[in-house]
């Protein structure tokens, strides 16, 4: 599956996006680490959907955007991108920071988002389970937080990376400053911007996915999200860390696909848990009283 790189302009910024696959439209929002056209999650999703994956300004070799400053700016900008793509109510999928943005979009405009998949989303904060300060991590410390198998993860991250080469270092620093500088506006110093008090607004059929060995945003955040979104289902994927999208892309895609069968898998009068077509455990969150 090959993805085409295209551009569109919103009021705020020039936006680059990747497009590929066929089927129902699906918008995928990447995490703070960024995205490339070769990411396995895109290929996995493209097997079933027509995938649109916009880069946040500052990512994908685009300029950062000074007029996007806070959570509302980010969520509305991304809604503008969906609008700019000519899509109406696509399946909305977001990983980590992208999940935080997707959840905000679904909470802001609950009638515009009917299917939502949040993959290890940021956006909540539990005092008893602090999320590590990813901004102060050195590159060599990252794999341990991001991957189920840090050694294999490190190889993914550091392929052809030579931190001593000044030219490489400069390129790396500029990319990192652009990307994480933008991400920091909603994630620094604590990746929480009040989403908890807006989650109840989400009407979308929602699936929440978590890698069982996520050490960046620990899996305990899964039930916290599920508890806030009425009818949300939680899928836990074994042998996967925060980068579950790289470690288990097929399982992630299958769990997203379950959104289409959710009504049959999970009768709304509820019988507690169920198993999805993946090997992951599926639990149904208790509905939140309104």
């Amino acid at each position, binding site marked *: 599956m090959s993805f085409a790189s295209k551009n569109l302009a919103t009021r705020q910024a020039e936006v680059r996006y990747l497009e590929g696959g066929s089927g129902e439209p699906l918008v995928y929002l990447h995490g703070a680490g960024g995205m490339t056209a070769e990411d396995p999650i895109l290929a996995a999703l493209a097997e079933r959907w027509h995938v649109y994956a916009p880069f946040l300004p500052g990512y994908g070799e685009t300029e950062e955007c000074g007029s996007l400053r806070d959570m509302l700016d980010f969520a509305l900008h991304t809604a503008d991108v969906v609008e700019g793509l000519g899509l109406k109510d696509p399946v909305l999928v977001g990983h980590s920071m992208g999940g935080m943005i997707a959840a905000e979009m679904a909470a802001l405009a609950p009638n515009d988002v009917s299917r939502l998949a949040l993959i290890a989303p940021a956006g909540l904060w539990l005092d008893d389970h602090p999320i590590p300060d990813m901004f102060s991590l050195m590159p060599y410390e990252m794999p341990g937080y991001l991957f189920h198998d840090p050694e294999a993860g490190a190889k993914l991250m550091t392929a052809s990376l030579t931190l001593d080469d000044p030219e490489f270092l400069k390129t790396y*620093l500029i990319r990192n*400053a652009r990307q994480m500088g933008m991400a920091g506006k909603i994630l620094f110093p604590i990746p929480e911007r009040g989403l908890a008090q807006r989650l109840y607004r989400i009407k979308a059929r929602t699936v929440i996915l978590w890698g069982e060995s996520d050490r960046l945003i620990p899996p305990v955040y899964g039930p916290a999200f599920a508890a806030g979104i009425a009818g949300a289902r939680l899928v836990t994927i074994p042998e996967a860390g925060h980068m579950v999208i790289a470690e288990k892309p097929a399982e992630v895609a299958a769990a997203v696909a379950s959104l289409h069968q959710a009504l049959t898998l999970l009768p709304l009068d509820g019988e507690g848990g169920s198993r999805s077509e993946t090997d992951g455990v599926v639990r149904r969150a208790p509905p939140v009283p309104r």
Partner: protein
Amino acid sequence: MKFTWFNLMPWPYLPDDFREKNRSVWVDIDQNLFDPAKSHQVYNTYMDLLEYADTLGFDGVGVNEHHQNGYGIMPSPNLIAAGLARRTKNAAIVVLGNSIALYNPPVRVAEEFAMLDCISGGRLVAGFPVGTSMDTNYCYGQIPALTREKYAEAHDLIIKAWTTREPFAFNGRYNKLRHVNIWPRPIQQPHPPVHIPGGGSVETYDFCIDNTYSYSYLSFTGYIRAKALLQGYWDRVAERNAPDASPYRAGFAQTICVAETDEEAERLYSQHLNYFYNRCLHVYPGFADAPGYRTIKTIQTGALSQYAPPKGFGELTWKDLTEGGHVIAGSPETVRQRMEELIKGLNVGHIFCLMHVGDMPADKCMYSSRLFAEKVMPKLRGLLPATEGDERFWCHPLETRATPGSLPAEYARKAEHV
């Protein structure tokens, strides 16, 4: 030339194995290493030393702001400066400075600096640093990519508060204020001179040039390594067609230790330099530069050495430190020669003399400071004759100033016996 006696206020009791046992002297330094009871003596000695510097004829006494930092126990420099405003007579009170993006609202800085200027009789030199990433982002939680915008707004608000003679509304992005009307306001008009500590950001060069502020480079690595950075500044001054390249447009911090002879200097000061350079500067590199804190333009033009992977704990020796120029140390003549190289090489009119180093005890610090003041400083004063009288970047105190502690004696005596 303007010489400011500076004390970073390092905590002098970091253990020998500090680097091995701790990841950082800054941000997440071990609480157990601070002893409040011991700090009572430390603070008072440090303030005594600043006051002593005034009696030696230094042009200024300098303080700065750091947070959660083992080599700078001065989160509020204004508190120290308030003490100095009372207990010093002639020296400028150089507060270098207040990290204005951290004050909410920044009107607080306009007010406190105004108070310092009033109490000291117009001796304030005001510094407005953006603040290091450690202080601003990691300790005080400012969003890196928004820090500069917030800083710029804080600056505009402070200057406007200082110079506007009627209440005004300020509708900023970060500050919404209906009634800005600071009371008191500074003695110095239109406002106290402003120095901007910077670390090589092009934006900061331009900011200084555009506003006629003095750019100060506060490094610990000495004048030899500073050459490229300050040359970048002077190149920018030329590029931007600034009306002049007065050396008072720039300042530089330099560690200085003076003894009667070079040998004596090594014997007296080596251990304290070792403490500072090999222990106090142990900062976890992940705190050095939050992504978004520096602009892309600065990274593209800037030095990258600080991002090289760590190479273990090197020990900088006396020889490394003095020959590398981190430190200017030795006999008065040795120090004079090297200071002359510094002043001419960097073209700087303001020297922030780091005369207290690491865990240096008071007596050695006084000895070194006195020798510098008496045997070095006078010989450096005439080095920049062409710009003699350029007072744009220095304070203008009142001619006649109050004498602290001069209540009517009669009543004071009565009170004692009541």
